[in-house]
């Protein structure tokens, strides 16, 4: 299908009864209007990253870039090359936190979700109820005791303070459990009759079947860790993250506006690309995300 016919097809709503054209037209106008509100700031960021200095400070400000340049990115490298901690260090720190945190979360959440989804045993329903309950409050509520626990463990100023709590993010377990419930019991029983133990069933039967849910957990966990600034746990400059570096660049004042936009572009591109790649799997998993009454 060509792009043209795809777009035209979009304007012709599904053939269904009870549709009035005028209302359709109005509703899609609404959709386009709000879509613009959502996407314009992002387009603006992209444009700003490529603006030369004179275009950044033009009055009245201009939305689109006219003479795109890579100056901001080269400036970024120069500024960061001169700083005490090399820029690559921030990238490496962020990558470490994000990759270990995301992969570990997928593994631990799946391992915990499998028994909860497929078996009944003492404590299983109460454990799941606690997880659902914990969806209903934000992590801010537990921030202070968390800090106390971290300092008791001696984890202040280590990356473990960011990574370890993120491994047990409750939304991940919830979605994984809901998704695993769809795996046919017969498949698991058959594997057991063939002599596989619980761990083998989990690893060779269940895990390959929940790949869409892996991608979903990834797309939820990755941006959260990728955008972390280290919170109140990391003070050492050597361990700071990309998001922290960004806030420092921005604080550098108005002369750094272009460089700031360049870092912002770096920060937002990765999660958005990931979502584009995993979109259909994510939607598939989300279909099972409902809460039973």
């Amino acid at each position, binding site marked *: 299908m060509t792009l043209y016919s795809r777009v035209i097809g979009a304007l012709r709503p599904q053939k269904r009864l009870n549709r009035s054209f005028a209302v359709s037209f109005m509703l899609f106008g609404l959709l386009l209007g709000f879509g613009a509100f959502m996407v314009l700031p992002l387009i603006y960021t992209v444009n700003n990253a490529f603006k030369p200095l004179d275009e950044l400070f033009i009055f009245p400000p201009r939305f689109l870039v006219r003479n795109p340049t890579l100056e901001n990115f080269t400036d970024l490298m120069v500024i960061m090359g001169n700083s005490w901690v090399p820029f690559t260090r921030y990238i490496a720190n962020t990558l470490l936190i994000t990759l270990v945190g995301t992969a570990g979360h997928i593994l631990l959440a799946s391992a915990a979700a499998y028994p909860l989804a497929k078996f009944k*045993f003492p404590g299983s329903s109460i454990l799941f109820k606690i997880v659902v309950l914990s969806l209903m409050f934000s992590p801010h509520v*537990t921030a202070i005791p968390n800090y106390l626990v971290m300092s008791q463990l001696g984890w202040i100023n280590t990356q473990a303070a960011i990574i370890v709590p993120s491994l047990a993010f409750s939304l991940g377990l919830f979605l994984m459990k809901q998704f695993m419930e769809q795996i046919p019991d017969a498949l698991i029983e058959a594997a057991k009759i063939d002599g596989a133990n619980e761990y083998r069933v989990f690893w060779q039967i269940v895990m390959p079947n929940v790949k869409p849910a892996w991608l979903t957990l990834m797309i939820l966990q990755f941006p959260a860790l990728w955008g972390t600034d280290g919170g109140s746990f990391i003070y050492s400059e050597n361990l700071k993250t990309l998001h922290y570096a960004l806030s420092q660049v921005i604080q550098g004042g108005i002369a750094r506006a272009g460089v700031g936009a360049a870092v912002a572009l770096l920060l937002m591109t990765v999660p958005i690309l990931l979502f584009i790649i995993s979109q259909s799997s994510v939607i598939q998993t989300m279909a099972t*995300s409902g809460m039973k009454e």
Partner: protein
Amino acid sequence: MVQIHNTTEPALQGLAGGPLKESRLAQLWKDIKKSKHYYFMMSPYMIIFFLFTVIPVVVSFGLSFFYFNMLETPRFIGWENYSRLLLGDDVFMIALKNTFLFAVITGPLSYIACFLFAWLINELSPFVRALMTLVFYAPSISGNVFFIWLIVFSGDSYGYLNGFLMKIGVLLEPIQWLQNEKYILAIVIIVQLWLSLGTSFLAFIAGLQTVDQTLFEAGAMDGIRNRWQELWFITLPSMRPQLMFGAVMQITASFAVAEVSIALAGFPSVNYAGHTVVTHLMDYGTLRFEMGYASAIATILFAIMLGTNMMTQKLLRKVGE
């Protein structure tokens, strides 16, 4: 469900006294032993989950009855933190008022927006549906780049809004948007709404795709006249589980506004205009080190979030009736 624990072996009756109770315990112990592999598989997750989520909630509640500054040993002071918080802390009252304002406006609005846009997107062709999903979802995952709104609302004439309004002649001089308490709250709400089409939005899109299409034909036969009746009597009841999930996500997020307010309005903001319960919590927890007092704030926040969630879920059960 794989049934593995219905092996009804004869209860241990040999012992004198209360055989029934004892046999139940024995049965339970047997079940536990039989499930040891499951406990083992869950243990890494559950240990971390309890250590950093469940126990902290309990500790926070306990700590709220103490005076604790991280240096001295905690001193029990009963309800004093709560009475000071609720009766003597004017800034907390501002924070509470702001938080409720945020929640009452952004909560329902973002929830309705999540559903409305998901519903509209659902009628598009697959390619455009994917594109629009990306457009609406991208802000919430774009990694804290909401600071770009700082440029939009910047106080000088280079700020996008000021520049625009001055160009068309509405303003003669730039307005300090983020330093003026008249505007701060509204700006934070706008940016919060921009960020709020997250997980629940995806859940709604997915839920809409699983609604049984034959129901619509049946509904048309039964006299459903327009798309609004279709929505209320067929679509919404069919996706009630997703609606519940979405409500939990949106409510929790709308009571936890803090990062956006801090990034845009500063910390503390002018006259506390952007102050919320969470920023108040941060103030006492990370700057003043009054951990007991901060824990009392956290406990109240916890109670508000939980209470609202329960109430909303009760309300949602009435959908489509």
